[in-house]
């Protein structure tokens, strides 16, 4: 099918505002009488809070209000809130915002104040007196699982396979995927490789720190301006945490400076509401970079054991893994997703995968781009690589031989639909990059596959026509990387309008129907479908109006993109969209079309990456020489932003592979809460990231769209590790593979 707009690369509608500095991000919000808030944070990783004295802070001139957990409403019943990509109990939600009886990690919020300026608020926070009883922290996932480990939550009962075990421990949950008989299959295998891997806790690293501004009226109406991946999610969480009526809260999503999953969970919003209510003034709270690292959701560090068996002729016989993920201070790591991702690209009769969600004295983890996936693929893709090597098979050939195809049952249960893994592996095999020579000492090439589920769910959009034939498009998804452009393109395609005659905007929670978060690779798919549906309804209304003008029945006309409404009986008779719009008040009033969807037919994403590396044997530094990312994208609506997602995800994965990690002291304090010591890739650390878009359409979508944003971060760590192994002859089983670790390994092996 040929498209006029889909597949082109127009300039994004919000572009000019963003390159001229006029776009309003969360921290740019200014209001009359605005106060500034600051948060007091725990200097200890684990401590009982014996007392908090706010009086010295409140005595400082210019301080208006101070709050602690005592200002939170009492939790009545046990409740679970849905956060889009994760769920968490209500009491835990409250205590994540303000510590209850205990501080559970370095940086845990203890109290917050509002004052006339950020500086006065900072002075006030320093004046608060807190008495702590310091407790022994546990920050390592395996240590936390030991019988005698310090307990974070005295009431946390381990659940196994969904049922409470009655046992109190730091293990919140155990889950499993099982089929066949792995033991027998391993015994019958010609090759078996088993290894243990460790990955470090890493942060999403968005450049814009969390910020929120709230205003509470004396009638109880709450308005929140914030940078978020989902305004409706913020509304739901604030209502839950503070026991407020949902309908009293309006959330205005500002422009958002990156999120990658980390801006779904609220942190500052409930504090801003509490402070605003007490001070009777609007209050803004913005985190410092140190606070972002200490107290917002990173993703889990993990320990993973992975085992793969195969026959002599390269057929996988059995897949087994145990995944232990740090949840942080409250349950809810992405280990469930990790168990699904770990062997998803492979077909096997015998599978046994166990996952464990473990609380430790670190910040509670939040979603991070394909949550749990990168950890899992770092382990599985290296073991798969090693099996292929032992068999003397080309790693892509081995993957092709064992690749899942449409109709195959996934390791995590369901049957796959229209997936394009085989097409992609073929494309890799035939690619110029894979067939190019890589010569020279200390160089290696690695490949890895990746999988991600991709999301669907509810979204809304509204189209209203202007008298000049242009349309306004309201949608509920915050635009984090160019989605306004995709939405406008879909509507322009359907209505046969030039792209720039569709004006998209991201609406607040009072102004558009419910829409799930911008996350789970769901936005272009699900909100795109809502826009598509709104456009179909708009076409129906346009036809109705034309029929009224021609005094015929709506069945006698039809919509043709480019032409507008045409008469079925008289081919020459037509009305353009602009002509119908101009007359709308005379033909029945304003034309306004609503599109909603609860999207179900999303297709999972697969990616295969090739990394060429060179190791400096003196320093242990890894340089990425060349990097190509292949991905099945279904259909690229705006190819530039699809490439951008893939390039960004690859770069994050490379940073995760080579440098990024949370460094803790033995006392459980975070030692590198800044962007110098927590080192994300710079422009100098990366080559151009080449992308190859494979389009195997999703049959459940009119254009074939699949989610693209997340799967691209799954393969990089595995691909880079496999490349380093080829370059050095050493298997690196721990992330990050930073210069120190590589150098030490080379020294130990005597190869330096």
């Amino acid at each position, binding site marked *: 099918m040929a498209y006029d707009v889909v597949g082109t690369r127009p300039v994004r509608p919000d572009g000019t505002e*963003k390159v001229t500095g006029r776009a309003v991000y969360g921290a740019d919000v200014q209001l009359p009488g605005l106060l500034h808030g600051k948060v007091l944070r725990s200097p200890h990783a684990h401590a009982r809070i014996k007392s908090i004295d706010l009086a010295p802070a409140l005595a400082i001139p210019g301080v208006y209000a101070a709050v602690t957990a005592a200002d939170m409403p009492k939790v009545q019943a046990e409740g679970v809130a849905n956060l889009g990509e994760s769920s968490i109990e209500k009491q835990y939600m409250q205590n994540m915002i303000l510590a209850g009886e205990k501080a559970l990690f370095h940086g845990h919020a203890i109290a917050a104040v509002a004052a006339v300026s950020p500086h006065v608020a900072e002075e006030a926070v320093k004046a608060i007196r807190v008495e702590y009883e310091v407790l022994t922290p546990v920050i390592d996932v395996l240590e936390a699982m030991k019988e005698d480990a310090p307990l974070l939550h005295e009431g946390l009962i381990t659940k196994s396979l969904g049922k409470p075990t009655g046992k109190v421990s730091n293990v919140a949950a155990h889950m499993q995927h099982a089929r066949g008989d792995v033991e027998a299959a391993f015994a019958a295998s010609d090759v078996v490789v088993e290894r243990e891997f460790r990955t470090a806790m890493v942060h999403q690293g968005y450049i*814009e720190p969390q910020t929120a501004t709230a205003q509470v009226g004396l009638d109880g109406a709450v308005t929140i301006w914030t940078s978020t991946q989902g305004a409706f999610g913020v509304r739901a969480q604030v209502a839950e945490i503070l026991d407020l009526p949902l309908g009293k809260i309006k959330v205005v999503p500002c422009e958002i400076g990156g999120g990658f999953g980390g801006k779904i969970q609220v942190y500052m919003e409930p504090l801003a509401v509490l402070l605003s209510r007490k001070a009777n003034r609007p209050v803004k709270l913005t985190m410092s970079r140190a606070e972002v690292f200490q107290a917002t959701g990173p993703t889990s560090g993990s320990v993973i054991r992975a085992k793969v068996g195969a026959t002599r002729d390269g057929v996988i016989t059995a897949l087994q893994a145990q995944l232990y993920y740090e949840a942080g201070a409250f349950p809810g790591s992405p280990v469930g997703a990790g168990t699904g991702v770990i062997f998803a690209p492979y077909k096997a009769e015998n599978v046994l995968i166990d996952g464990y969600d473990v609380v430790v004295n670190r910040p509670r983890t939040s979603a991070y781009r394909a949550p749990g996936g990168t950890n899992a693929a770092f382990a599985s893709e290296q073991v798969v690589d090693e099996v292929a090597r032992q068999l003397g098979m080309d790693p892509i050939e081995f993957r092709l031989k064992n690749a899942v195809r449409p109709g195959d049952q996934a390791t995590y249960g369901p049957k796959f639909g229209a997936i394009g893994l085989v097409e992609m592996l073929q494309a890799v095999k035939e690619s110029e990059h894979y067939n190019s020579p890589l010569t020279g000492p200390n160089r290696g090439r690695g490949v890895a596959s990746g999988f991600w589920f991709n999301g669907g769910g509810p979204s809304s959009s509204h189209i209203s026509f202007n008298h000049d034939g242009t349309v306004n498009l309201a949608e509920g998804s915050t635009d984090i990387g160019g989605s306004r452009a995709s939405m406008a393109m879909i509507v322009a395609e359907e209505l046969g309008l030039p792209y720039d005659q569709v004006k998209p905007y991201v609406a607040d929670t009072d102004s558009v129907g419910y829409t799930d978060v911008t996350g789970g690779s769901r936005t272009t798919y699900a909100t795109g479908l809502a826009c598509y549906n709104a456009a179909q309804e708009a076409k129906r209304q346009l036809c109705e109006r034309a029929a009224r003008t021609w005094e015929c029945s709506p069945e006698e006309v039809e919509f043709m993109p480019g032409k507008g409404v045409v008469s079925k009986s008289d081919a020459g008779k037509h009305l353009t969209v602009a002509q119908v719009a101009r007359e709308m008040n005379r033909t029945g009033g304003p034309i306004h079309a609503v599109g909603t969807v609860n999207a179900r037919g999303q297709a999972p994403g697969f990616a295969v990456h090739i990394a060429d590396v060179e190791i400096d044997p003196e320093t242990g530094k890894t340089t990425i020489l060349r990097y190509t990312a292949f991905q099945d994208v279904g259909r690229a609506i705006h190819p530039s932003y699809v490439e951008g997602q893939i390039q960004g*995800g690859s770069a994050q994965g490379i940073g995760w592979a080579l440098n990024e990690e949370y460094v803790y002291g033995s006392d459980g304090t975070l030692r590198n809460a800044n962007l110098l010591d927590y080192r994300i890739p710079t422009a100098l650390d990366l080559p151009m990231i080449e992308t190859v878009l494979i389009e195997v359409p999703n049959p459940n979508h009119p254009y074939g769209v699949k989610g693209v944003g997340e799967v691209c971060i799954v393969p990089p760590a595995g691909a880079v590790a496999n490349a380093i192994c080829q370059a050095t002859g050493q298997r690196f089983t721990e992330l990050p593979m930073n210069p120190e670790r590589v150098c030490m390994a080379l020294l130990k092996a005597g190869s330096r």
Partner: protein
Amino acid sequence: MPKKIAVATKINGQGMEFLCEPRQSLLEVLRDELKLTGTKEGCGNGNCGACSVLIDGRVVNSCLVLAVEAEGREIRTVEGMAEGGKLHPLQVAFLEHAALQCGICTPGFLVASKALLDENPAPTEEEVRLFLAGNLCRCTGYDKIVRAVLDAAQRMNAEEVEA
């Protein structure tokens, strides 16, 4: 509260006076007092470059400059890049190359890129990467940013030849 100090400076070509506390950074005054919120704060300690501005033509992190140091200097921010009702070629190139996703680092990248092209009108890819290594972007992997800067340089040089 500490006494405020009067500072006379020039911002985006316009003479300007403001009052500030000695402890306030230039970034804070630009954003909170002068409402020039195009300059962004990403880290507050000079590691991310989101707050890049030009002082007398040199690119600096405005979070590391005290506002009082602006006295008698000439400051340029992202708001001053488009001149005569026209976007700067770098701004055009960033849009056409889709060199921004969330856009929070974009003002800093534009200002730093302008400083680079002012001093080196025809940089190589490596020179662009080195010069921009003080500006962090988490969305793009830098690919499209580097291409946009190289393209803008080429276009500006071509325009110069034509002129």
